[in-house]
């Protein structure tokens, strides 16, 4: 043992340490690291600053950051930039806005990234405002052409070019603490071959001779028919769809679709809202009881993909990032899948009907990453330039699209060809185009330090409802039962929030 120690010690001592970098970035995602490494040389060449990427496991990154922020001592140890995941970010918003460890980025977002066009023949999107390089005047794109706009004094900056609903998750009281990297709209994908064999079309409902998208209740009915078809042919274990039962993530996703946030920015709880109760009850009877249509996979992407290949799960929620797993784990699904928008909670009128704001969104959102600058960063301008280089540049976005299958939060890039390719997994369907169609309507999300607690509480109520159904409780009483459980949970979470709120 001693010999081993000495020998390895010599090896370690002889190695040189890494050079000190000018700008440090902490991140936890290997895909991002890989994508960024391609772009870094250009940045260093341009600005003369070196960049250090620290790839740290997600849990450690958060523990370190929490400890660092709490201790208030920062020289040399805090990074300049840090990437955070949406489920982790809430706790960093706990202090008052002046004490949050991240730098508010409103100024940077509002004062850089001005949209410029070379001439009036440049392409554009409805509502864009750009400065024409030729005459330095501001034009707005309306009805297919650039129109001079005397009322605006500045063109679109980054903040106008990002999908607005994505900023709220990373903001507190109007101050934006992180730049969103993605949108993650959610759709539903299904095994087209198996549904076709059953003779059921999950995507459309016939109504008075016209087709429209189904509601969740109608979709559940289709699922039941689907399951009955296969069960009567002796196929065991074929379930219509996948919904998490042991974790609240999907339930939260569906609640977001109905524009319900469990804990909103002011700390107010929405666990006992009528909509929440209704949705929890509905979700519970989808995963348990006599009208059950959904099961859960074992943890991890591998078993999940396997379940789809085997046909145990024939429809599943797909935010854009989940497709990357399918490509990796289940290439044998080529051509067998198809994607549709999420079923709605409230019936939608014939195509083009006007839906008021309070009804549900056509999609939801699941997951998200941001990149932010720490308050202790000594050269925030350099840090900002790095963000622009890494995340607002062509190469960065393309690399993330290919590796993580992620749609960026910057609308302009949605025209890139990589987002308009036919997807072989889906038999040629252009899946990104569907995501793009839905992205602007992805509901806004809010995160506070108690959001995690609220989610766990929601999960608990869901578990209780599932147990109720499994014990044979009558479905009629489910909603009342759900209401009582949610009331219990809300009282508990409220108590925790009251106790833990600082301001």
């Amino acid at each position, binding site marked *: 043992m001693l010999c081993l120690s000495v020998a390895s010690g010599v090896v370690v001592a002889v190695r040189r340490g890494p050079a000190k970098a000018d700008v440090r970035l902490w991140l936890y995602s290997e895909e991002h690291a890989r994508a960024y490494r391609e772009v870094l040389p250009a940045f260093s060449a341009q600005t003369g600053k070196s960049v250090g990427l620290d790839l740290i496991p997600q849990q450690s990154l*958060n*523990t370190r950051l*929490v400890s660092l*922020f*709490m*201790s*208030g*001592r920062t020289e040399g140890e805090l990074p300049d930039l840090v990437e955070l995941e949406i489920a982790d970010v*809430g*706790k*960093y918003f*706990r*202090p*008052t806005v002046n*004490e949050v*460890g991240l730098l508010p980025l409103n100024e940077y977002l509002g004062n850089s990234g001005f949209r410029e066009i070379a001439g009036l023949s440049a392409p554009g999107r409805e509502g864009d405002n750009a400065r024409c390089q030729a005459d330095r005047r501001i034009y707005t794109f309306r009805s297919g052409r650039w129109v001079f706009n005397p009322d605006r004094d500045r063109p679109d900056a980054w903040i106008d070019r990002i999908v607005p609903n994505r900023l709220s998750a990373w903001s507190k009281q109007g101050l934006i603490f992180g730049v969103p990297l993605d949108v993650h709209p959610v759709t539903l994908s299904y095994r087209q071959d198996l549904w076709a064999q059953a003779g059921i079309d999950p995507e459309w409902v016939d109504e008075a001779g016209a087709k429209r998208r189904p509601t969740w209740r109608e979709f559940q009915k289709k699922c039941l028919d689907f399951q009955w078809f296969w069960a009567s042919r002796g196929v*065991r*274990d074929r379930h219509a769809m996948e919904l998490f*039962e*042991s*974790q609240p993530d999907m339930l939260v996703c569906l609640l977001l679709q109905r524009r319900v946030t469990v804990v909103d920015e002011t700390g107010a709880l929405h666990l006992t809202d009528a909509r929440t109760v209704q949705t929890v009850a509905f979700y519970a009877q989808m995963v348990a009881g006599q009208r059950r249509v959904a*099961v*859960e*996979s*074992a*943890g*991890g992407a*591998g*078993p999940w993909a*396997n*379940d789809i290949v*085997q046909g*145990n799960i024939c429809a599943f929620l797909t935010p854009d990032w989940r497709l990357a797993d399918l490509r990796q784990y289940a290439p044998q699904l080529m051509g067998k899948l198809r994607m549709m928008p999420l079923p709605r909670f409230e019936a939608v009128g014939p195509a083009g009907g006007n839906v008021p704001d309070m009804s549900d969104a056509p999609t939801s959102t699941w997951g998200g990453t941001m990149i932010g600058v720490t308050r202790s960063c000594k050269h925030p301008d350099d840090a900002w330039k790095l963000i622009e280089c890494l995340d607002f540049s062509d190469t960065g976005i393309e690399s993330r699209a290919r590796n993580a299958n992620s749609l960026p939060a910057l609308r302009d890039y949605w025209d890139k060809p990589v987002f308009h390719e036919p997807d072989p997994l889906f038999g040629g369907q252009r899946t990104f185009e569907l995501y793009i169609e839905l992205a602007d309507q992805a509901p806004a999300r809010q995160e506070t*330090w*108690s959001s*995690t*607690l609220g989610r*766990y509480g929601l*999960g*608990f109520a869901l*578990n*209780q409802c599932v*147990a109720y159904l499994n014990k044979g409780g009558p479905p009629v009483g489910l909603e009342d039962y759900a209401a009582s459980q949610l009331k219990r949970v809300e009282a*508990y979470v409220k108590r925790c929030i009251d*106790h*833990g709120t*600082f301001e």
Partner: protein
Amino acid sequence: MTRGTPRQRLWSLQHRYSAYLFVLPFAAVFCAFFLYPLAQSVVLSLFRSVGPRQSRFVGLDNYGFLLRDPLFWLSVANTVLFTVLFLILQVPLSLGLAMLLNSERIWFRDVLRFAFFASYMVGNVFVAVIFMVLLAQRTGLVNRAIAGVLPSVGSEINWRGDARFAMPAVVLAALWLSMGQAMIYFLAALQAVDRDLYEAAAVDGAGRWARFRHVTLPGIRPVLLYLVLVGTIYALQLFELPYVFFQGFGPRFAGMTVVGYLFMNGFLAGDIGYAAAAGWVLFVLISIVAFVQLKAGGATREF
């Protein structure tokens, strides 16, 4: 002591103080790196703090809230349940295993020993991952094996999602992981038992069970007590295994242990002071249990 030559004086000095010197390296590191953070965490638990410049002294408020929190008590119940199940199964099984592997008549002794030890080598996180896969509802090996015997039951057991199976799943994983470790310690202890005593007992006409009770057990008693104590402490502090296995806290929080509760409040919600308070309450609980154990084992005689 009579004054002798300088050499003799040095000799007697070193005899008297050597004990302190022996303990010194351990005690020095211990004080510096355990006691100091320990003290600090007491201080932390008396504050509510969300940032370096935003701290408020709240005295025992954290503790008060904690003790009235039903979720905390649920986590205590879970932890106690796990501990009891774990100990009841682990100690006898690993002792039995060690004894079997220690007897002279086994072939492939090395290989068998390795087989049982392999589980410990791979580490906490990996065990959770692998059990996630093994206990998967439809594709997992365990359910497939059960389905081979009882087809309709096999695919319905949801280890991760059903609150009734959650704790057994964790116990299973923990047993698999730690039996190897306990077995190794027992093996080493069994080696130290004097063979002559066995022969003497056999000559006296003692049967196998009597030999076990009167030769083996007393011989390995210190290590047995140690393992029970360590096993208890490990079980009461369990956190990573269920957390990774459930990717959270399990159905209806059935997988939440006390440290899991601490982790949720301290590191997921960001209230480190509250976490410190929870840690100290756990500390008190474990201390009581440990003290009772030592007393029952007669080890306090050594104090």
